[in-house]
């Protein structure tokens, strides 16, 4: 090997980039018609939140004329602004999916203002009229899938004690805990859900401790709402408890313990968005949906799930898909005895009150603060 050649070639390439790179966008080097950028806050094989988005991105790679660029473990700081700009400047991305909640404000908003001709789609944010028109937010009513999983959990529990490992007591998480518990109560009205908050989205050690502690207390079905459910699922299975999954299908991690789970269905939504984008149709700025819109789905039931549980779960799932079923239907009391949804009141999925949820329903053991 001649090292002189290497360095000379490197210098030549580098100098060329310095002079040409700033004038010609690097996108010219690629033949793709549309470049779509995906940004993840964690690693894309986390068996959780990020993997669900990566599965959606993978679905786009199969579409003709679409090139996908991805970057993982991007913190929710100005680093994500620079990643977006880098994808735009160096890769020629015209549609961006920064997928973590903390990317929205101020980072994605800032980029949407800076590049008004490009399109930015954010998962979980609440787009409002004052935000740029080329920005949008989408999310799924995953509590519908959680509700169905809760029914399976309720039928499968022998001890009548369920466990929930959760990150933070914020509305999205509380809604999942409540929907799951309300589902379980359809199977067994006396069932309880012990909830443990770990305090952050990715805390594997605390998640494992919480799982063990729940099982020590007699809990025999566990689920979670953290970024990567791998720790909880594997630990619960090792200790002989059953699990319902979250974000993606974790049955490969614990085939004998995985009852079912609430999954994102980004591999359906993202191609839908990209088709709208490439055909010149406007993607709605505010996009929400549940089972009916195929934004969320329920994992296939495990072999150990009883026929009775399957029948009830399928019945509710069908009603949710048809749009004829309301999860938060009064009367609902919180776990301190106060009425949170009065009798006769039906809080449908689009009800803004649900976005502000701050309580745990009756049957949940735990506190939000």
């Amino acid at each position, binding site marked *: 090997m001649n090292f002189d050649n290497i360095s000379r070639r*490197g210098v030549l*390439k580098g100098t060329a980039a310095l002079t040409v790179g*700033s004038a010609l966008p690097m996108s010219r080097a690629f033949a793709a018609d549309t470049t779509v950028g995906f940004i993840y806050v964690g690693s894309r094989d986390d068996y959780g939140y990020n993997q669900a988005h990566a599965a959606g991105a993978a679905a786009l790679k199969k579409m003709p004329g679409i090139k996908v660029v991805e970057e993982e473990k991007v913190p*929710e700081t100005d680093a994500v602004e620079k990643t977006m*700009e880098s994808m735009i400047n*160096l890769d020629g991305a015209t549609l961006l999916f920064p997928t973590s909640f*903390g990317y929205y404000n101020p980072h994605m908003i800032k980029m949407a203002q800076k590049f008004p001709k490009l399109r930015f789609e954010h998962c979980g944010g609440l787009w409002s009229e004052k935000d740029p028109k080329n920005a949008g937010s989408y999310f799924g009513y995953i509590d519908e899938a959680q509700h169905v999983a809760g029914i399976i959990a309720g039928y499968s529990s022998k001890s009548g004690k369920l466990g929930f490992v959760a990150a933070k007591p914020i*509305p*999205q998480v509380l809604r999942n805990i409540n929907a799951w518990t309300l589902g379980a109560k359809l199977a067994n009205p006396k069932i309880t859900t012990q909830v443990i908050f770990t305090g952050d989205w990715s805390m594997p050690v605390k998640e494992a401790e919480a799982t063990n502690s729940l099982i020590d207390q007699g809990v025999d079905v566990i689920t979670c709402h953290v970024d990567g459910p791998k720790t909880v699922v594997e630990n619960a299975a090792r200790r002989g408890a059953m699990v319902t999954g979250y974000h993606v299908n974790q049955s490969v991690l614990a085939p004998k313990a995985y009852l079912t789970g609430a999954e994102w269905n980004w591999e359906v939504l993202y191609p839908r968005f990209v088709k709208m984008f490439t055909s010149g149709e406007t993607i709605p700025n505010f996009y929400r949906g549940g089972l009916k819109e195929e934004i969320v789905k329920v994992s296939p039931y495990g072999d150990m799930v009883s026929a009775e549980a399957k029948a009830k779960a399928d019945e509710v799932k069908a009603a949710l898909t048809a749009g004829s079923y309301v999860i938060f239907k009064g009367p609902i009391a919180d776990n301190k005895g106060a009425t949170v949804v009065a009798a006769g009141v039906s809080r449908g999925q689009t009800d803004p009150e649900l976005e502000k949820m701050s309580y745990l329903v009756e049957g949940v053991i735990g506190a939000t*603060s």
Partner: protein
Amino acid sequence: MKADVGAPVGTPVVKTGAGEFLRLPPITAKIGGAAEYVVIPAGALLASLVLFGIFVALFGKNPLDLYFYMYQGAFGTWFSWQNTLTRAAPLILTALCTALPAQLGMVIIGGEGALLIGALCATSAALAMAGAPPLVVDTAMAVAGMIGGGLWIMLSGALRQYRGVNETISSLLLVYIALAILNFLVEGPMRDPTSLNKPSTPEIGTANMIGSIPGTDVHWGFMFGVIAAVLSYILIYHTVFGFAARVAGGNLRAARVVGLSVGKLILIVCFLAGAAAGLAGMFEVAAVQGRTNANLAAGYGFAGILVAFLARQNPLAVIPVAILLGGIGASGGLLQRRLGLPDASVLVLEGMIFVMVLASDTLYGRLSIFRAKGA
């Protein structure tokens, strides 16, 4: 071990009038020494790049592509430069949090905690002064951030001075306390009730946001970092105070014998160190996030430790090293996207540089080419 920190290994020992031993670089070694300080770290950097190239080649990727993309992502275009400098901005300030106490022989690794406390104090100042002219608000934020961060690291210094608690451990543990305080305040008393799914403090207001350096999109934190690094260098190498600090760092007992009040030095230097990290926190709020939330715990304080050690604790060298690490961070995305390398590959490179630079420490004073010229 303590006696060696703060003085370059291998520099001759001279006798001072006080009869104590101090390590000072002799005039004759100055020219050769200066070259040494550039050539050896550069060589270490080059060696780690070659090693990383081999590592990448093992994964079946072309190392030449790697170097090209790294160069392109970090320094190859004007955009890349801005990306690099933006990432370097907080690192200069957090590196000073480790580099300054190092002059006293102290290993402070809790810059992250000072950054978080600084951010909280700065945000509180801005919220308390809502309605005041932006310049006043930003000045108050900077002062509050620096005082908050300064006191935080001074706590480690005081624990070491008065209670004999190891400052490395205490400063590290204080990071977790700072994070707990931040989470408590952000999710409790200081929470903006409209921040539903991302608990945050109220925003400091668009008018109070610090913009970018004209002609770039690099925020002013970078410039303040450079100023702080230069001031630190002057303080350490060109003032009586700095000399006293280095004396204490070189030999604590000698410093006491010649009548230096070591306790005061420790407290002041720790305060200045924490103030630098606190200022980094203030800029993260005032120039980037616009409010305080858990996003601030992005690891800038920990990256600063790496920068300080690579700069061999020299405040001036912190600037290029921070830019270098900023560049590595900036090119990391391109490596992921173009070469399909995992995010951790950048960490592998940083680790290799770190080990190489530390290992190259033994070369100082041993390479005859530098000696021959000066002598």
